[in-house]
Structure formats: structure tokens, C-alpha cells
């Protein structure tokens, strides 16, 4: 989705070092960015740290943002890169899920129970609608590996939700 003129002006001002413009961009984008990071980490305290890191990194690199890319997509990619930099590829999150955060027998809960790499692929492809090419570039997996992981993850989730 393309940014409207106001957002383009805010991005331009933020690229010139205007903190006030960057704050407005933060206010506009924080909820979807936080939702993505929370879904990927499953832990509110890690999500808080990683969200802050994402915005600080984005502020440092905003001059490199492509003029035609949507700011929200760009921030979400930065969020994924920040999360990936913190987590090892095959780290399991069993036992760190906040039980109160997601209702029992909900898809969110089952997503949190997945291995990190399966969760990453599933969230980015089926929830955030990232393309296989984008996921491959961010995660380092080949498109074939991503497809296999996606099929396995969907199978796993179908089994869990249809129990």
C-alpha cells in the first residue's frame, strides 16, 4: 500500500532529522508494529525492548528508506530483522509463553507453541502477507525450505485447532 501525502511529508521531515515528524510516524505505526513483534516473541517484556530497538534502528536508517516503499512495511521488515538479530533460528519458546496473554485453545496460543522458525514463516506469510521472496531475504531460508516449513506448520495448526 502506498503512503499518503502527509505520511510522505513526515518521512521526508524525519529524514532531515525532525524528531517531531518521526514521533508522529511512531504514533501512526506503533500498534501494527508492536502486534507483529509480540506475535513473533510471545513475550511482552521482550516485545517492549525489541519494539524500542526497532524504532531506534529505523530512526538511524530512515535516510536509506526507499521513496516508494510504504513506511509501515518498511518498519515491519525492520522489526523482523531486529527480532531475528535477537533470536537464534531454531530457538523454542516452550515455557516462556505468557499464559494470560492468549486465550486457551486459540490460534494465537497454538502459534506461540510453534518452534520459532515455523512461527516466523507462518506469521509473515499467512498473517502479514509477506511474499516468499521477502521472507527468504529476511530469514535466509530458500523459498523451497519456506514452502516446506509453511506446509508443515499449517498441518500442525490444523491438527491442533481441529482437536
Amino acid at each position, binding site marked *: 500500500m502506498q503512503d499518503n501525502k502527509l505520511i510522505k511529508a513526515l518521512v521526508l521531515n524525519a529524514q532531515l532529522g525532525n*524528531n517531531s515528524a518521526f514521533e508522529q510516524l511512531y504514533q501512526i505505526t*506503533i500498534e501494527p508494529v*508492536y502486534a507483529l513483534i509480540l506475535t513473533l516473541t510471545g513475550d511482552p517484556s521482550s516485545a517492549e525492548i525489541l519494539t*524500542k530497538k526497532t524504532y531506534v534502528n529505523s530512526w538511524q536508517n530512515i535516510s536509506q528508506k526507499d521513496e516508494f516503499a510504504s513506511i509501515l512495511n518498511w518498519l515491519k521488515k525492520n522489526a523482523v530483522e531486529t527480532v531475528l538479530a535477537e533470536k537464534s533460528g531454531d530457538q523454542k519458546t516452550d515455557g516462556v509463553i505468557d499464559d494470560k496473554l492468549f486465550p486457551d485453545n486459540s490460534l494465537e496460543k497454538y502459534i506461540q507453541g510453534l518452534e520459532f522458525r515455523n512461527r516466523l514463516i507462518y506469521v509473515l506469510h*499467512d498473517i502479514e502477507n509477506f511474499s516468499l521472496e521477502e521472507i527468504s531475504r529476511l530469514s535466509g531460508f530458500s523459498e523451497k525450505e519456506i514452502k516446506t516449513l509453511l506446509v508443515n506448520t499449517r498441518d500442525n495448526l490444523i491438527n491442533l*485447532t481441529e482437536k
Partner: protein
Amino acid sequence: MTHEEVKILLNDYFDEKLSIEVNTEIQVHLSECSDCSQYLFSLQDLMKKADQLPRNIKPPTNFWHDIFTFISSIKAETIKQQEEIDLKEAAKVSEESSEEKKTRDKRLKAEKLLAWERKKAALLQNLKKPWFKYSLIGLASLVLLFFIYDNFLSKGNTWEVKKLRVGSSSYSEAFSNLEEDQLLETNSVTRLEIQIPKLGSIFLEHDSKIERLKADKIRLLKGSILAVKKDANELLSIEVPGADIKDYFLGGQLKVTVTNPEASLLEVIDGWVSINKDNVETLVLSNHFCQIRADSGIGLPYHKFSAKEFVEAINNYCFTSPGNEEALISILTKADVSNSVTLWNLMQRVTRKQRDMVIYTMFGLLGNPPQGVTDEGLRTLDPGMMQKLIEEIELRI
């Protein structure tokens, strides 16, 4: 074809990533295989559930404060590193040319000394001539007489008061004079013009009251005055409850209103004005307002087109929660380039640590700092740099 391969194909079919030919084959297969139809149905059901997941989640707290603090510290570090590089380069250049510089300085010094000695010798030579001696004495006497007249005899100058006709300031009639310690008051229909020699005019608006104090100073007790200074060679001083307002330069226009015994509002229409209280000077430039409260001090000046939220943030910081860091950050995050005068004044009222945040916000808004102004100098409120910065701000806003 293995079961796994069929599954992958069904997923591709579901993701609409198959060619038309394979798609048709799958559709045929689905019409014959109940297991695969069931699997496809489950995939659709899973996607429906995924679509219903929340895409927006509000964080439990506002993270912006921490992000902003971090960004400010990175900015400070970057500028510091750049300055260190610049200093090293400058030292390198100066090392190379220090010998040349020493020689040039010596030569200049010697030339100046020689010129001075020549002038001295010529003066002593002239002093021996009687006509030169008497001319000098005559000139000195004239200067002395002018000084005495200007400072003593012409003092006690009269402030002529004129009554202005309703709705006009161009037709006026002489009314009386205003002497020192005398009060002057208008009602709901009168407006008065007070002409002050060497300074200009003060217009006393409806329902207003002033007192003339010593020298060129007045006290505004209620209502409002408009001071218009033309060809002035004296500075005007206006006392309001809680502060002294002084014009910074000769000339300019300002309006002061005492809204109640505790609060006043200054509007600078043209020129620069300073407000003094407890040895803290607040500088207000043209097109800016500044609130003054007798009990809680002087507000921060703000541009006449400042957003309402920005003015509220200023009032909150100055009057409701003085010195509160949250309130300070609220000002900084709402500021744009037109609010640079506010930030310039704010620098003098915050702690050294907070000053960094103000400095980098201002640098962010103004782009590069003016030549000769560094964050290190502003941190210590170096008077020369502060002056350069405010002059640059005046040009930019």
C-alpha cells in the same frame, strides 16, 4: 506422486500459485478424493481464523519517551565525534602553519607599534602650536556643555498626553502632561497617546491605568498599552506584576496587557524584547507572545501561529508542573522550526542533562547549527554562541 507432494500442491493451489493446467488437474482430483477436499477445507478454515487475529495491539505503555531519550543520546554522541574529528583536523592545519602565523603576528604587532608612535609624535608636535591647543580646549568645552544639557538640564522632560478621537489614532488633541509618580487612567471610551521624547509613543487603551516611574519607566497597573518606538535613542522599561519588560534594541512595537492582578501577556509586534525576573532573562522576538504570572514566573515565549497543543505543553511546563521532565518532552516532541525561539529560551531553564535534549531537538529542526556554534558551547550557555544562534533563528522563522 507421494502424499507429501500432493499436500504441497494443495497448499500451492490454496495460495493460487499453480499454472492453469495444474490447477485444472487438482480440481479434477479434488472432485474425486474426499481426503484432499477435507484437507483443503481445513486450510480455508485455518486461513479464516488467521484473518480474524488482531493486526493492531496497543502497547501497555507509551514507548516514545525511552525511544526519544535514546535517539537524543545517539545524536549527542554523533555530533561529539564529528567535533573531535573537526578539532583534530583543525589542529593538524594549525600545526603546519604555526610558524608562519607567529612571524605574521610579530610583523603586525611591530607595524601597529610604529603607527602609534608616529601618531603620538605628531600630536605632541601639534600641541606646541597655540591655535591647536585653544581649538582642543574649545572642543572639549562644547562636548562637556552638551553632556550637561543632555543629562541634567533636559531631564524632567515632559510626557505630553493626547486624547485620541474614537476609532482613530491620527486625530488627537493635547490633554495634559504626565509627570513622574503620576497615575493616568482611561475609561471605556477614551484612548490616550503619551508622547515620550527620544523614545516614541505609548497608546493607553480603554479601561487601562499606568503610573510614570523614574526615568523612562512605566508601571502598567491594568488594561493594555501599545508602545510604538520611532527614532528612539532610549530604551523603554515597563513594569507589570511579577516582571520587568525591557526592549532589547532601540525601536520596535510591543503590546502589553495585564489580564488580572496576577497575569500579563506580552505581544512583540516588531523588534526584540527581554523580560527579567530573578536574574533570568527571557528573550521575546517579533511575532511572539509570552505569558507572565506574578506567582509562578515567566512563561516561555511562543510564536503567534504556534499550535494550541504546543502552547498547552508550554503552560503545563511553566505553570502547572514546573520543571517536570514529561512536560519538557511534550514540548520537544511537539516543536517545529517556528518554535525555535521557545527552545532557545528553554535551554536556559533546564538542567545540563536535559539541555542536551533541547539542543539536539533544535539542531534537528534547524538542520545544521550556524557557523561557530557547537553543542559543547551551548551546553555551557556560551553568550557569544547563544547570540549567534538567536540571530540565526530570527532569520529562519
